[in-house]
Each structure stands twice: as C-alpha cells, then as structure tokens.
C-alpha cells in the first residue's frame, strides 16, 4: 500500500480540492451549513479515495477492487435520492416552493459532483503513474497535480449550467389593473379581489418582462419547473411579502401565448427593480427544463 503512497496521497488531495471547489455556501444555503456541508465534504473524501486507489489496486492485480467503483456509483445514486427526499420534505415549509424540477436538478448536481471528484482522483493517479516511468517522483507528482487542477477547471466548465440571462433579455415592466385583473405590460396575470391588496400591488410590486432570445429559449422558459425556479430564487434573494394567509402576494409568472414572452411580478421586501433583473438573470437554466427544438429538422423548419 505504502509503495503507492506517491500516487494515492496527491490524488486524494486533489479529489478533495475538486469537491470543495464545488461546495459553495451561498444565498441558497444548500447544502446547508455547517452540517450538510460537512457530510458532503466527508462523502467527497470517500469518493476521492475510491478514485485514487483504483489504479494501485489494478497494479497489485487486485482486479476485484475495481468492483468497488460500481459500489461507489450505487452509493452516489443514493446520495441523489437522499438529497431529493430531504429537499422535497423541506419544500413544504417554503413560502415560495422550489418545485420538483429544481429539486431534481440540485439532486443531480450532487451526484455529478461526486463522480467529478472520483474522476479527478483517477486522472491524477493515472498521470502520476505514467509520468513516474520517465521522471523522478517529485516532478511526476508536481505535473500530475497541475494537470489535476486543470481537470478541475475543465470539469467546472463542463458541468456549469447556463443562466436565464444568457438565453433571454430582461426588461422592467409596468404594473396596472384592468378592473380586478392584475396586468403587467397589458398581460393579465390574475384576479385580485381585495382593494387593499390592489393598492399594495400598485405601490410596491415590481415586474419584469423576460424575452427569450430564440426558439430554444422559448421552449425552455415555458417549462413550469423553470418558472418555479425563477420565482423561488428571486424570492429568496429579494424577500417576499407573502404570508400563508396573504396568498395574494405570491410571485407569479405568466406566459404570453402569442410570443412566448414571460412576465414576472413579485411584491418583494426590497422593491428594487435593478436587483430583480439581476436576480432573474442569474437564475440557472434547469437541466430538466432545457429543450432544443432548433436542433431538430422539424423545429428548425417551423422556426423560420
């Protein structure tokens, strides 16, 4: 075992670095800090160890050790299930729900990141092993580590998701009432009965128009899960006025059936239109919501 220490130790370290680089504690507070982060950090150590020892095990002719990788895959699928379940459970306690599509996306990301950790370790160990045949240990470890960091950067790029700002333009929009119908840029959203609520909407509501850049974006943004994700993200960042007994102020997104444009209205704690635009722009495009009709023959024909 110690014979391969020069392969195993750097691989595990880089694997852990890759996991930590993906564990961001930001406004989403997911994974929750400190306990959620800690358990994912530990899982990161486990998966990087698995990636790191795969090659030395093969070198020792312990071919059965490779089946551990399959075990690891099973383990990470469980991580995904676990994340999904826990998010679904806490979703009921949210004023503005994440929605199942967003939850699925987060769970998928956790699984993928564990694989990323494992692969980073595996790549580093292979590189160090191969280089060690030509160079002294120190250089092979050094080059292996540098390549490992490059791998991490590449993986980051490969699994990073688009944001709404990249597939759509966001403009401020006007809020008004037609009788009891709340309208944004003349698009009817819902019926607000109470006069008091209408007054609050006119005074405090902020709204944006989300204009998709192409047919792909129209299809993606029409997804209900994607819309829920935007609502949730914005209400986490700007705060939401809604309470359980005041459902009038639930943030709402409506789609213009003619053009595919969306309008989004929210009565936030901080009515700042600039921040609203930034928050909408930075929402990720969900993997499960993404559609590409333009990549198909029929879709391209229909678009022009």
């Amino acid at each position, binding site marked *: 075992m110690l014979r391969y220490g020069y392969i195993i130790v750097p691989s595990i370290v880089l694997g852990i670095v890759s996991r930590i680089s993906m564990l961001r504690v930001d406004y989403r507070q997911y994974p929750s800090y400190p306990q959620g982060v800690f358990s994912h950090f530990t899982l990161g150590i486990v998966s990087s160890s698995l990636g790191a020892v795969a090659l030395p095990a093969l070198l020792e002719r312990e071919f059965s050790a490779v089946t551990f990788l399959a075990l690891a895959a099973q383990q990470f699928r469980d991580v995904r299930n676990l994340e999904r379940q826990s998010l679904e459970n806490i979703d*009921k306690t949210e004023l503005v729900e994440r929605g199942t599509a967003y939850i699925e996306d987060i769970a998928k990301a956790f699984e993928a990141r564990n694989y990323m950790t494992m692969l980073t370790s595996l790549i580093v160990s292979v590189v160090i092993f191969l280089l060690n045949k030509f160079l002294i240990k120190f250089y092979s470890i050094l080059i292996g580590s540098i390549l490992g960091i490059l791998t991490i950067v590449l993986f980051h790029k490969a699994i990073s998701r688009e944001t709404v700002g990249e597939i759509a333009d966001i403009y401020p929009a006007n809020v008004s009432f037609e*009788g*009891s119908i709340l309208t944004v840029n003349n698009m009817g959203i819902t*019926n*607000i*009965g*109470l*006069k008091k*609520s209408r007054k609050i909407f006119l005074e405090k509501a902020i709204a944006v128009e989300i204009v998709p850049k192409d047919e792909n974006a129209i299809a993606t943004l029409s997804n209900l899960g994607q819309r829920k994700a935007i609502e949730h993200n914005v209400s986490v960042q700007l705060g939401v006025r809604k309470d*359980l*007994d005041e*459902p*009038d102020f*639930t943030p709402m997104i409506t789609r213009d059936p003619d053009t595919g444009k969306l309008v989004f209205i929210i009565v936030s704690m901080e009515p700042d239109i600039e921040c609203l635009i930034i928050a909408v722009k930075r929402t990720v495009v969900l993997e499960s919501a993404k559609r590409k009709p333009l990549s198909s023959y029929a879709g391209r024909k229909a678009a022009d």
Partner: protein
Amino acid sequence: MNNQTKNNILAIVTTDESKIIGGSVPIFLARDEKERERIAILLSKVTLGMIHDLENGCYIIVRH
C-alpha cells in the same frame, strides 16, 4: 397543506342575492360593500384562500 383541496371555490360573499343560485358552496350575504369586504377578509384568513372579484357584487374565496 398539500392534501387540502386546491383551486376550488370555498365560499361566495355577495351583496346581490339575485346573482346566486344554490350550489354546494357556502354563501355569505353582506349588507353593503364595506361588510362584504370585511367578511371576505375574515374568510380568507381562516381558509388561507385568495379573494377574487367577479365584478358583479360577488367575491369568491379560492385556495390555490
């Protein structure tokens, strides 16, 4: 919250009796505009529903 009925009319509050014909929904008759608004608010607080205006003197309470 999740096992409650959604998008159903829970109650009707009206000042105009002639606009309503029976049904399975509780109907609350109000004397004037002010009372109608008040009853609607009270009902919405209890049912956690949203108040919608039918613009004919009727409010409906719906939980979404």
